[in-house]
């Protein structure tokens, strides 16, 4: 393998590292009064990272199979890059606040570092790379969650996240060690044939699922989610709920489909229970939230439950529906978070009751929010409908019709709380609605991207077919 090919295989990771270093150096060179230039600089730089990442590369592996790159992982990294770009575009308003003036660069650098970790995790070919990637991704996030270090909630959320993250990583590592003990290898391809239903493997598997459950915030491992989401700055909450979760779900599915494919019946019953719990409990808690961040936190827990239905489908159909759903989820959730961030930056309001009468003053933001909520609820013709329908199709392909019935019942319940927000914005009267304001151009670009995604990703069947063609090469 030539050096150039190696670079090509590692293009996403290398680009991210270079981008992070460039931002650090640029920040050092900037005089104190011009620091805010770093915001637009990082956005533009990251747009180039996204574009260069699209360069195609032949599938291949590095470091003796520890790092595996194929078209599907490449695609996954591209959509995560897109999500991070959208988050960057949305964070300008927040970073311009005076208390953040001295630490703007850190915001971008830390996000890029954690994304690097996720990229390594996505491409891992053995449990060691997987674990290192996961940890690289986890630690900077705690820093980001505590970014408002002067606010006690933010600091508390950071501590909570780092402690629980360490605990879950420990559990995960313990599980991995058991699997290593039972099979004698850490490489996915060597482990797969050795996996049996021996007690040690099953125990290791349970620990593994528990550890991943924390990262994806499945019930009963979800307790950190709401507090951390509420305490973190809103752009970081968006990152946690979309990018961090998307990457973890992806690698979780890959490991289940490849490493644990011998004990499929064992893990399908585990996932069945987790899916039912996650959807139901996430929904029930979302019903009564008034803080928009907590609301979206519980909604994203419920959405994770739906994603598990896609995993139940296994094989290329399962993988396709998951990646497709994550893609749609990025546009959808980031649209919702973007509107929430724009409103928070302009007025400081972050409660649903504060949104009353928003349509009369800020009609465009209200419409984007409504689109996003309809997409989250899975209402046609927006993309969320297609995403959810295909997740259900995936579960249906294995005959889990009762599970689908539970899921659609939950989807109906979820419609209630999504409509609550729509009702606040469009129907409820308010004497003092949030005043009309103009959000920053970058915010508007990001919301435009998200709205286009919400509108067209579903209708353009080519996207689904493309993902299908990528994943059927692998599974």
């Amino acid at each position, binding site marked *: 393998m030539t050096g150039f090919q190696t670079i090509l295989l590692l293009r996403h990771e290398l680009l991210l590292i270079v981008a992070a270093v460039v931002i650090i150096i640029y920040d050092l060179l900037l005089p104190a009064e011009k620091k805010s230039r770093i915001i637009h600089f990082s956005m533009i730089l990251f747009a180039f990272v996204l574009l260069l990442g699209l360069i195609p590369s032949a599938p291949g592996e590095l470091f003796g199979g520890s790092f595996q790159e194929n078209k599907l992982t490449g695609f996954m990294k591209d959509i995560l890059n897109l999500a991070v770009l959208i988050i960057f575009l949305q964070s300008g308003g927040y970073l311009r606040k005076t208390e953040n003036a001295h630490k703007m660069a850190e915001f971008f650098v830390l996000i890029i570092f954690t994304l690097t970790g996720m990229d390594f995790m996505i491409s891992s070919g053995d449990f060691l790379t997987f674990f290192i990637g996961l940890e690289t991704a986890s630690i900077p996030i705690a820093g980001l969650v505590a970014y408002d270090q002067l606010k006690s909630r933010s600091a508390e959320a950071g501590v909570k996240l780092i402690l629980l993250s360490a605990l879950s990583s420990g559990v995960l590592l313990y599980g991995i060690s058991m699997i290593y003990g039972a099979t004698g290898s850490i490489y996915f391809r060597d482990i797969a044939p050795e996996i049996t239903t021996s007690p040690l493997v099953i125990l290791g598997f349970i620990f593994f699922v528990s550890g991943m459950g924390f990262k994806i915030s499945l019930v009963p491992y979800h307790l950190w989610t709401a507090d951390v989401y509420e305490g973190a700055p809103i752009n970081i909450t968006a990152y946690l709920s979309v990018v961090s979760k998307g990457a973890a779900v992806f690698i979780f599915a890959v490991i289940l489909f490849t490493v644990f494919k011998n004990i499929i019946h064992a893990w399908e019953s585990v996932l069945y229970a987790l899916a039912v719990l996650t959807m139901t409990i996430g929904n029930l808690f979302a019903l009564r939230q008034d803080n928009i961040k907590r609301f979206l936190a519980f909604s994203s827990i419920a959405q994770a439950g739906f994603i598990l239905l896609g995993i139940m489908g296994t094989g290329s159909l399962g993988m396709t529906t998951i990646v497709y759903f994550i893609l749609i989820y990025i546009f959808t959730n980031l649209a919702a978070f973007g509107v929430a961030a724009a409103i928070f930056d302009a007025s400081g309001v972050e409660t649903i009751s504060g949104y009353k009468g928003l349509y009369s003053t800020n009609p465009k933001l209200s419409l984007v929010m409504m689109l996003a909520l*309809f997409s989250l609820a899975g*209402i*046609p*013709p927006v993309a969320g*409908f297609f995403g959810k*329908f*295909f997740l*259900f*199709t995936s579960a*249906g*392909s294995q*005959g889990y*019709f009762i599970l*689908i*019935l539970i899921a*659609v*019942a939950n*989807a*109906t319940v979820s*419609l*209630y709380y999504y*409509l609550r927000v*729509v*009702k606040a914005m*469009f*129907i409820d009267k308010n004497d003092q609605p949030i005043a009309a304001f103009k959000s920053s151009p970058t915010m508007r670009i990001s919301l435009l991207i998200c709205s286009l995604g919400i509108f067209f990703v579903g209708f353009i*069947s080519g996207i*689904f*077919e493309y993902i*299908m063609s990528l994943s059927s090469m692998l599974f």
Partner: protein
Amino acid sequence: MNILSLFVVVPVLTVIAILFTGGLKGTRIVAAIGMGVQLLLAAWLMYYYLSLKGTGDLHEMILVSDYNWFPTLNIHYTVGVDGISASLIALTAMVIFAGVFASWGMEYLPREFFITLILLATGVFGFFISLDLFTLFLFYELAVIPMYLLIGIWGSGPKEMAAMKLTLMLMGGSALLLVGLLGLYFYSAPDGGSYTFNLLELSKVHMPYEAQRFFFPLTFVGFGVLGALFPFHTWSPDGHASAPTAVSMLHAGVLMKLGAYGCFRVAIFLMPEAATEMAWIFIILTSISVVYGAFGAIMQKDLKYINAYSSVSHVGLILFALLMMNKTAIDGAILQMISHGLMTALFFALIGMIYGRTHTRDITKMGGLLKVIPFLGVMYIIGGFASLGLPGFSGFVAEMIIFFGAFQHQDLFHRVATILVASSIVITAVYILRVIGLFLQGPIKNEEHLKLEDAKWHEKLSTITLMVGIIGIGVLPLWLSDTIMGSLQPIVDKLAVYLH
């Protein structure tokens, strides 16, 4: 492009055109033009269908066009119509056209109102042209959700509660339906090969009986919720009473028929064995709908509630007739869909117009209105006659055929149910005549009402459009009945195999 797709494209273009116009005047004219084009298209479709059948064309569906949308899942965008769906499209076009004129004075957020209203209609048109269950479901849900905004923003009374109740119940129904449709999909290739959502292909596949027993009730109830099947009808009175005029018209007139059409086209047609087996449960439920709805209407004082309960009763009769599963009864059911659609739309339009003048819908607070607003009053009375099944109007033809068909069953159970349901004709007469007597005739109770003006030109246009249909069917039922009968034959042939 396929001509049928125009039924979706024209409303979408209308919506886009409305986006670029401002103010009530511009918006309503654009909406009226768009829906006028739609009405012409529908008229052309009926004409084309009849002339094609006149030449002896034997295809089950005409104007079929197919686009492989998601090839790996074999999900298509397939459109095509037969006599049944063509007549229902014509109904929809008439009701939405009348609805636009009934909302001529919509002053609060007019642009948003017409956009949402036409989006709702888009869903209905799309539903009736779809032959692929995926697109059918997509359009079905598309038709449900604008309701929330329409009732919540432009409604009256306890609108938030009504809107939420209606939306959640209908979405709950469509949740059940989704499982049913996935079941049909995954049992569509018993001998291997690719799964399909195509209605015509599915009708050739024999689904295992065990699977039918699981998926039939889900599908039937799923559609039945929209058809106000007892005990899932509770959204209907609240929803219809709170909705703005055009929405009540479209909802009671057309959307409830979506439910009935789905029950028939998807649930009964594709799972005939389970349908025959379980029909008795649903016959009991629909009989309750019919009788209970009629009694409910007697007890109400609010004009909209009266009409909403009457819709529960009449749509219950449609579902009842469909479950009889013979040609006569089903023919009657489809005639009733169209007849009731026109009739109830007319009622809701008139109620909206009267309410706009008197600012009350309480029949005990009004009286003698016939003297003040003769045009609206006479229209209401004619609508009432059609509703209680007076010969010469559409209601008579439809109900007569239904009871003929239902009575063809020889066994005691069907006979008893039929007699019970037929008793609703009398109850209908009671509440219709009671309403007319109370608020149209007698002395004028409120002096203020003497100043009321009669119908304006757009109101006349709106009501006359619907009236033409009602009298047309009543006087010349055969052309419509023939249209339907031709398309029913293949369906009935299939059902006959499973009927004992």
